[in-house]
């Protein structure tokens, strides 16, 4: 296995040695251990592990409180509970506390290593999606616009944030669902929407419905092409699209999601068009 950095949290020296032995034999890098909340905070902050194994019963604290402390330092650190206690109630609580897996003591080395592999593979998969998705959708956007409207958009501004969006007038939104869920939006003003439709039709659009249909189809093509490229890169993403929804109104605010999205503001001959896309890291479903 890759030499992920691991911290072991357990109040029993025997258990720490036992787990450490399993992990090191498998090639993991055990960078520290902790027996109580104070030690957890200190060791995790100092060693910045990829993963923490967490006992549930600890003196003066418990595995859930310690998990929250770990995530307060870095929410991307994965926590796997390794505990003798395991019932529906505590598993439910662990899930709520964003624990990534639950292994019962006595520890079976294969079970623990499988759990670690599964959790870290999921993490790697998200990292690879995060590295590539923005460029992929941006290219799909540029490509579709160049082909359909014969207009090459120029990216004027690019940024990422997790703030609320203000629609420029017409926003087409498509939910992306798969191993990770995400959202793609393409935003037009009334003028840029009409101008875009006119370029494609080579005539004045008949009515508003005709314009909206073109925008929905364009967004569908961008999202669809982007997802196909990503799925080809790694079929484990298995991304699929919900149908497009067209949002309109005066000063429409579109909620921020609880994750970052990337925005490209494209300048075209018919005005400004915005592409916005992002994915949620999420947790793999377990049990």
């Amino acid at each position: 296995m890759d030499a992920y950095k691991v911290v072991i949290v357990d109040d029993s020296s025997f258990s720490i040695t036992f787990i450490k032995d399993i992990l090191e034999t498998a090639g993991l890098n055990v960078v520290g251990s902790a027996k109580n909340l104070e030690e957890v905070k200190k060791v995790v902050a100092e060693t910045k592990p990829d993963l923490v194994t967490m006992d549930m019963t600890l003196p003066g604290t418990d595995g859930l409180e310690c998990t929250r402390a770990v995530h307060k330092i870095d929410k991307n650190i994965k926590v796997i509970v390794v505990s003798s206690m395991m019932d529906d109630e505590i598993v439910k609580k662990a899930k709520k506390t964003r624990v990534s897996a639950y292994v019962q003591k006595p520890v079976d080395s294969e079970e623990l290593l499988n759990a670690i592999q599964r959790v870290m593979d999921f993490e790697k998969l998200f990292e690879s999606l995060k590295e590539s998705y923005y460029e992929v959708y941006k290219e799909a956007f540029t490509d579709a616009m160049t082909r359909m409207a014969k207009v090459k958009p120029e990216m004027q501004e690019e940024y990422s944030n997790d703030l609320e969006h203000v629609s420029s007038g017409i926003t087409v939104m498509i939910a992306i669902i798969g191993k990770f869920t995400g959202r793609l939006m393409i935003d037009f003003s009334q003028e840029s929407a009409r101008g875009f439709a006119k370029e494609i039709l080579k005539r004045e659009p008949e009515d508003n419905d005709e314009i909206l249909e073109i925008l929905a189809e364009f967004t569908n093509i961008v999202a669809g092409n982007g997802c196909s490229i990503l799925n080809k890169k790694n079929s484990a993403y298995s991304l699929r699209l919900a149908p497009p929804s067209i949002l309109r109104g005066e000063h429409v605010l579109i909620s921020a999601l609880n994750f970052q999205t990337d925005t490209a503001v494209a300048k075209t001959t018919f005005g400004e068009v915005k592409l916005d896309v992002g994915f949620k890291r999420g947790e793999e479903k377990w049990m």
Partner: protein
Amino acid sequence: MDVKLVNPFVEAFVNVMPMLGFQDVKKGNLSLKGKELNSGGVLIIVGIVGSVRGNVVYSFSMEDAKKIASTMMMGMPVSELDDMSKSALSELTNMLTANAATSFSNMDMLIDISTPTLLHGTNVSVKMSSEQVLCIQLIANDIPIDVNISFEG
């Protein structure tokens, strides 16, 4: 669109709302709408793929949105629809749709759902992809919530 597709959403409402402090849960009217949904209040869209593909749009007035958020936050007064209230409402629709997904799986229909998108503004409209939208009104503590179901095929 098959009317029985409404049932999982009704069941979800009956299951979920009492857990969030809404004791009085009723089913309102079922109606058929065109593809254009209008609202002066709050709309929340959740995407669906799997055995059925489409979107579900939850809608309520701004005043009702604040009341729902307030009840979910143990009666904390909500005068403005702030980030916390929006997050509560999004979480509500996530729970309702996830719960409906479980009911769908009992009907041998497997679906996956997206993260909710909440929008509000003046004269907001959402144009759905399906020609017809099935709307079931569900009522919690006298607050009406429209559940608009737009499924393809």
